[in-house]
């Protein structure tokens, strides 16, 4: 049994969650010992999102990304053109070998002792490497390359990695959400890997625990009415034309909150009752944008008449990949933990590679209006996220539990997505699934104990 030491005395990690009552101890969010254990048990094992291939079009291009609290260099090799990911830490004394957010480089030279690595992460030289009074050419360079991720996956243009060589394949890690992610990375007319991302990453820090937005906003419809009331009153919906047009032949559909307690992924799910691609509804005020998307939707409908697909990538879905990635159609948002009460929140927003300039401009402007500290919608969320932490970490406040029982006991399985629990769209089912998986990772000694490597594992706790 894994125990948390020091701060609150010895206590099993599972005791922080009361699955019968539907509550979670605030210690999980504010205890530094738990945070340290999360970095080891979760962020060293899970598949994590690093970026998108469109950020690195040319040999030698690099982008600084992160895995948990650590910096990772994404770089396209100058020779074989493959993208790889390396820990940004010199093997000699641990200095950062790259201090830029992005660029193009021949090598990464550590400014400390000039240990130097090529774009495949190989040590290719160091200061005084051949000097007979120093290294004398005796360092085995093959042994001292940059630490490389154990597994790397380019999934339809999106880039993922894990430090754990025993982790399952990325597709097995995603399970039934594999196709969901694929849809979100398709162009409007349904072509795979059809996106490019607006660069650079949109980044900002939030003084809160990574799970506050990372687990709560997996799907959380009950927050919208109050949190975003002012934005809604300021006509956010009308900003994208919502309500301007009603479908003439609405697809029969049902909406749910879903959570996979064994995998930790979840979100919003719309089950359409017949195949095909729903008609396109006007959403944009910018001239020519609706016309572009409508034509793309029509091409998609011709190609995929027998399949259930969203009308266009921009509306492909809203779900979350464990532990900290939110996929909101073409917007990918994720939360890098820095400390118990500090995270860095990154966003990449995509658009059809082949879209004309006026469509790309409209999408980019919308993303800027919507997201980030100056976006007038997401800034509402930050107000909540930022105050949750200081209001929960005090000696008195941390003795109270959080309520996670909205819809508890009402979830059911559905043959259309085996293994996934369906519940009312306004319930906290997806959030509970996050914690089922969280607990499994925190208790597991290795991937051998975790689904899907262990096919018999059942991590659902509530």
């Amino acid at each position: 049994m894994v125990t948390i030491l020091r701060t609150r005395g010895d206590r099993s990690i599972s005791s922080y969650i009361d699955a019968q009552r539907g509550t979670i101890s605030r210690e999980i969010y504010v205890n530094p010992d738990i945070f340290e254990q999360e970095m080891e048990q979760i962020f060293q094992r899970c598949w994590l999102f690093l970026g998108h291939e469109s950020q690195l079009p040319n040999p030698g291009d690099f982008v600084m990304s992160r895995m948990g609290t650590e910096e990772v260099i994404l770089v396209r090799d100058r020779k074989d053109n493959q993208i790889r990911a390396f820990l940004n830490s010199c093997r000699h004394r641990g200095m950062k070998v790259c201090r830029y957010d992005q660029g193009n480089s021949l090598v990464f030279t550590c400014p400390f002792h000039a240990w130097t690595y090529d774009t495949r992460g190989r040590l290719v030289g160091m200061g005084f490497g051949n000097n007979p009074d120093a290294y004398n050419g005796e360092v085995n360079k093959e042994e001292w390359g940059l630490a490389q991720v154990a597994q790397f996956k380019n999934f339809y243009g999106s880039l993922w990695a894990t430090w754990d060589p025993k982790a399952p394949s990325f597709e097995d890690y995603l399970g039934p959400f594999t196709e969901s992610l694929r849809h979100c990375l398709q162009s409007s007319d349904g072509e795979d890997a059809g996106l490019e991302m607006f660069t650079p990453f949109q980044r900002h820090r939030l003084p809160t625990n990574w799970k506050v937005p990372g687990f709560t906003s997996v799907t959380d419809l009950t927050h919208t009415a109050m949190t975003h009331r002012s934005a809604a009153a300021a006509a956010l919906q009308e900003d994208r034309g919502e309500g301007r047009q009603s479908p003439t032949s609405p697809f029969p559909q049902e909406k749910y909150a879903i959570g996979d307690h064994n995998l930790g992924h979840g979100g919003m799910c719309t089950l359409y009752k017949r195949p095909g691609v729903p008609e396109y509804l006007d959403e944009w005020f910018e001239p020519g944008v609706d016309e572009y998307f409508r034509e793309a939707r029509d091409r998609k409908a011709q190609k995929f008449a027998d399949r259930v697909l969203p009308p266009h990538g921009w509306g492909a879905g809203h779900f979350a990949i464990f532990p900290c990635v939110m996929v909101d159609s073409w917007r990918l948002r994720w939360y890098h933990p820095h400390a118990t009460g500090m995270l860095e929140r990154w966003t990449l927003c995509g658009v059809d590679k082949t879209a004309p300039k006026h469509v790309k401009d409209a999408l980019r402007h919308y993303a800027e209006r919507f997201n980030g500290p100056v976006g007038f919608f997401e800034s509402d969320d930050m107000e909540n996220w930022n105050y949750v932490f200081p209001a929960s970490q005090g000696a008195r406040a941390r003795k109270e539990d959080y309520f996670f029982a909205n819809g508890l006991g009402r979830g059911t399985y559905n043959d259309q997505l085996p293994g996934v629990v369906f519940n009312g769209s306004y319930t906290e089912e997806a959030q509970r699934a996050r914690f089922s998986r969280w607990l499994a990772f925190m208790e597991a000694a290795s991937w051998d104990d975790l689904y899907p490597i262990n096919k018999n594992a059942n991590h659902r706790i509530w």
Partner: protein
Amino acid sequence: MTESKKYDLKGQHGAEVFRMLPEGTRVTLLNGAIGEITANAHDGGFILVKFLEHPKDPSKVGEEDYVFFNEVREAES
């Protein structure tokens, strides 16, 4: 006829000159090897050199290797 140009690699000025040495520059190393710059990292530390002569290890002729600035004796275009 183009005259060859020798670069002054000494001192503070020389460090900046080394950082900007263009591709094609011919360099002579302290160990007697001669090569041509095929890429410059522009970090002031390393250049990538294709060896034209290598008295101590002739098998390296034609190969590329990274060379640290303090191994370079001369550079000329």
